[in-house]
C-alpha cells in the first residue's frame, strides 16, 4: 500500500467514522432521553428532600427545560467542538471524567484482548494440530466450558481461589492507594491488580478465538496450497505455521475486530466484580443516576474506540493479506 492511497483511505474512513459517530450520538441521545426520570428528580431524591422550585432550578441549570430537539442540537454542536458537556451530578466536564477512567478500561480490555488473542490462537492451533487426540478434546472442552460460563461467575471463582484461599492477588481496585509508587514499581503494582480482571475478561474471548482458530485451521488445511506445500516436501510443522496458521488468522482478525465493542461492553461486568475504575462502571452508575451527559459521552468514546479498532483491524488485515489491496 502506497502513501497516497493509504492516506486517502484513512481520510475516507475518518469521514465515515464521523458520520457514524454523529448517528450514534443522535440515536443514543433520543434513547437516553426516552428514559423515565431525569437527573433533577434523582438528585432531589438523593438530597432527601426537595421542593418544586429547587427542581425547576436544577432543570433550568441543566438545560432540561428546553425542547428535546433544541437540547439535541445544542449537544451535537458542543460535541462537534470537542465539548462533551458537564456531568449534571458531578459538576465536572464529562470529557475529563471519561478520560480519567478511560485508561483503566483500556488497560483492562487491552490486556484481556492480548491474553485472549494469543492464548486463543495458541490453543486453537494446538487443537487443530492434534485433531482426534486427547489434547484436542481437552482444549475443546476447556474452550466450550469457558464459553458457557457467565463471565462474572468466572470472576467470582478466580477471586475465591486467588484472593480468598491462596491470598496471592488483591481482589479489587487498580493500585495500592497511598503507596505513592512510581515508574516500574507502580507498573508492577498495577499488574498485580490487573491480573485477575484481565484474566476473567480474557478467558471468555480466548475460548472464542481458540474455537475460531481451530475451525479456520481445519478449513485452510483442506485448501490446495497446503497440498502444494506438502508436495514440495515442506515439513509438517512449517506447513502448519507458515501455510495453515497464517491463512487461518485472517478470519480470527476479522472477528476480533468486530468483537472489540463487545469486549468493552463485557468490561462492565468485570469492572463491577473487581471494582475496576473504568468507563463501563462509570456508564452503569451514570445510567442509574440518569446522568445523561456521562452516558452519552461513554457511548461516544466507546463507539470511537470501536471504530478506531475496526480501522486498525482493516489496516492489519491489509498488511497481512496482499489481496485486499486490489479486491
Amino acid at each position, binding site marked *: *500500500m*502506497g502513501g497516497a*492511497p*493509504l492516506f*486517502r*483511505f484513512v481520510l475516507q474512513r475518518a469521514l465515515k467514522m464521523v458520520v457514524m459517530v454523529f448517528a450514534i450520538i443522535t440515536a443514543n441521545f433520543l434513547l437516553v432521553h426516552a428514559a423515565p426520570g431525569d437527573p433533577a428528580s434523582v438528585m432531589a431524591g438523593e438530597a432527601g428532600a426537595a421542593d418544586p422550585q429547587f427542581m425547576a432550578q436544577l432543570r433550568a441549570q441543566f438545560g432540561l427545560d428546553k425542547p428535546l430537539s433544541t437540547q439535541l442540537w445544542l449537544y451535537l454542536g458542543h460535541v462537534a467542538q470537542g465539548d462533551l458537556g458537564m456531568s449534571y451530578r458531578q459538576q465536572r466536564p464529562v470529557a475529563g471524567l471519561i478520560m480519567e477512567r478511560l485508561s483503566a478500561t483500556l488497560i483492562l480490555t487491552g490486556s484481556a484482548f492480548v491474553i485472549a488473542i494469543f492464548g486463543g490462537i495458541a490453543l486453537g492451533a494446538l487443537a487443530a494440530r492434534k485433531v482426534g487426540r486427547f489434547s484436542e478434546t481437552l482444549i475443546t472442552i476447556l474452550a466450550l466450558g469457558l464459553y458457557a460460563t457467565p463471565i462474572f461467575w468466572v470472576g467470582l471463582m478466580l477471586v475465591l481461589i486467588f484472593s480468598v484461599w491462596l491470598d496471592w492477588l488483591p481482589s479489587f481496585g487498580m493500585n495500592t492507594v497511598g503507596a505513592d509508587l512510581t515508574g516500574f514499581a507502580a507498573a508492577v503494582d498495577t499488574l498485580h491488580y490487573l491480573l485477575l480482571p484481565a484474566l476473567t475478561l480474557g478467558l471468555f474471548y480466548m475460548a472464542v478465538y481458540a474455537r475460531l482458530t481451530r475451525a479456520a485451521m481445519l478449513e485452510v488445511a483442506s*485448501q*490446495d*496450497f497446503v*497440498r*502444494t*506445500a*506438502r*508436495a*514440495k*516436501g*515442506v*515439513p*509438517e510443522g*512449517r506447513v502448519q505455521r*507458515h*501455510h495453515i496458521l*497464517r*491463512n487461518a488468522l485472517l478470519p480470527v482478525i476479522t472477528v476480533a475486530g468486530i468483537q472489540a465493542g463487545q469486549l468493552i461492553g463485557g468490561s462492565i461486568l468485570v469492572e463491577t466484580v473487581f471494582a475496576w475504575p473504568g468507563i463501563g462502571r462509570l456508564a452503569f452508575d451514570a445510567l442509574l443516576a440518569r446522568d445523561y451527559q456521562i452516558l452519552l459521552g461513554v457511548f461516544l468514546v466507546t463507539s470511537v474506540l470501536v471504530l478506531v479498532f475496526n480501522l486498525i483491524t*482493516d489496516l492489519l488485515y*491489509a498488511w*497481512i*493479506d*496482499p*489481496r*485486499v*489491496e*486490489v*479486491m
Partner: protein
Amino acid sequence: MSLLAVRDLTIALPKGADRAHAVEAMSFGLEAGEILCIVGESGSGKSVSTGAIVGLLPSALAVTAGSIVFEDRNLLGLSAAEMRLLRGNRIGMIFQEPMTALNPLMRVGDQIAEALKVHGAADSEGRVRELVEAVHLPDPDRIVHSYPHLLSGGQRQRVMIAMALALEPSLLIADEPTTALDVTTQMQILGLIKEIQSRRGMGVLFITHDFGVVAEIADRVVVMQHGRIVESGSAEQVLNQPQHAYTRALIAAVPHRARAIEPPASGRPVLELVSVRKSYLRRGGLFSPHVRVPAVQDADIELRQGETLGLVGESGSGKSTLARCIVNLAKPEEGAIRFHDTDLRRLARRHWKPFRKRIQMVFQDPFASLNPRRRVGEIIAEGPMAHGTPRAVAESKARELLSLVQLDPSAAGRFPHEFSGGQRQRIGIARALAMEPELLIADEPVSALDVSVQAQILTLLEELRQRLGLTMLFITHDLRVAAQVCGRVAVMQRGIIVEQGQTSEVFSNPKHPYTQSLLDSIPGRHWLPPVTR
C-alpha cells in the same frame, strides 16, 4: 529398471462408498524421459493413484496391496519423514487448480525459495530467478516479488512448475495441470512441460481426461475405468487403434464430426443485438477506488429462426455476460436487444415476464443450477406454474419432459443430489423446455461434464433442436464442440466480437489472428480420432 514401477496397487475406499476400491490391481511402469498419460473420466481413480505415489493420500484411503518402486526403493515402505524428503526433491508435482494452489499470503519468490530451503538447497535469489526464467515467466524480477493473486492462471501454473522443478526431480507428476486453463494457455503449458521434460530427461506422469491433450503430449497411455486399467500402450496405438470398448467409446465421444454444411439460415431474425455494451463496476480494494471494467463492447449479433449460433471465446471474453444481458440477468448500458421487434433492454421487470416463456436458458454447472432443496418435479414445473399453468398440468408435463430428456419420469419425486452430472444437465434442459421456448441459450452446457456424458448431452440438444425447431445461442470455450454443434460462430475476445461467420468458413479460413491462435491451440489438433462404429 524403470524409473517408477507400480505393481498391483490396490487402494481401498472407506466403507459405504459406491465401490470397494478406489484403485484395484493397478500396474504400470514409467521410464526416465517418458511421458505417460493416465486417462480416465472423473471417479476412475487416476488421481488417487498419484496420491499413493507421493504419500499424500487422504486419511480415509489406505493402500491395501501392491508396491510402488521409485528409483529402486519401495515407496510404500518409507516413513512419512523419508517420503517428505523425496517430495519436491526427487518427485515434483503440479496440480489442476493454479488459482488456489499457491499460498495467497506468500510472495511467489518465497514460495519457490521454500521448495529449495526445505530440502537444504541454497535458496539464493539468483536460483529462484533462474527457475522463474526457466518457465518463461515475463519480467522475472517483478514476478518474484509479487503475490500470487496478481498473476494469471497460466502464470501461476508456471510458478507451480518452477517450484516442482526447483530441485530437478527425476519424476514429475502432473495432475490435470491444464484443465482449468484456457486453450491458448493450455497449449503453452503443455509446450513448456514437454520442453522441460525433454531437456532434463525427466519421467512425467500426466493425468488427464482429455484425449486431445493425450494426443498432444503422451508417449504412452494408460486408460482407467472404475479404478482399473482397461488398456495401455503407446500413444499412437491407443489413440488410433483402441482395443477396449471403453477406450473406443471415450474416443468416439470426443467431438470431431464437423457439422454438415447447411445453407445459411434464411428465416426471419429472432434475436438481434445492436451495439450492446456492458461494463462492471469492480469494487475497489481498501485503498483503491471503484473501477469500471468493460465486459462487452459494441456486440452485434443476429440470430435467425432455427439456426444455432456458437459464441466462442476464452474465459473472461464476455461471452457469458452477453448471454446474461439477453435474458436480463445483467443490464447492458447501451445498445438494443431486439427479440422479434421488441427491444428487451428497455422493458421493466413485469413487462419482461411474457418473454420469459419464449427465451430460456441452460446453464453450465449441473450442480449449481438446480436448487438442492427442491424436488426435480417441482423444479421443472415451477416455470410454467409461475406463468399460470395449473399445478396438475405442469406436473404431468414435467414427467413427459423427463422422458423426453431420457430420464425416468419417477425422477420427478427425487432431489437433484441423487443424480449424476449428466442427468442433472438433462433436468436443466427439461426445465428450460417446459416453457416451450423459441430461443434457447445454452451457456457452456457441457463444459463441466465428462467426455462421454458430454457427447450424450450434445446429441440430445441436437435432437431436441431439430424436433422442436429451436433457435439456439450456444456458448462454449471448446472449439471442437462449437464445430460440431453450430452452423455459425462468433468469436469473442476481451468483450469484442472479433469475427463471425459460417462455422466451416471461420474454422478453415480464420480472418482474425485471435481466431487463428484459438484454432492452433486445440489440443491434439493434428489427431483425427478414428471413426469407429
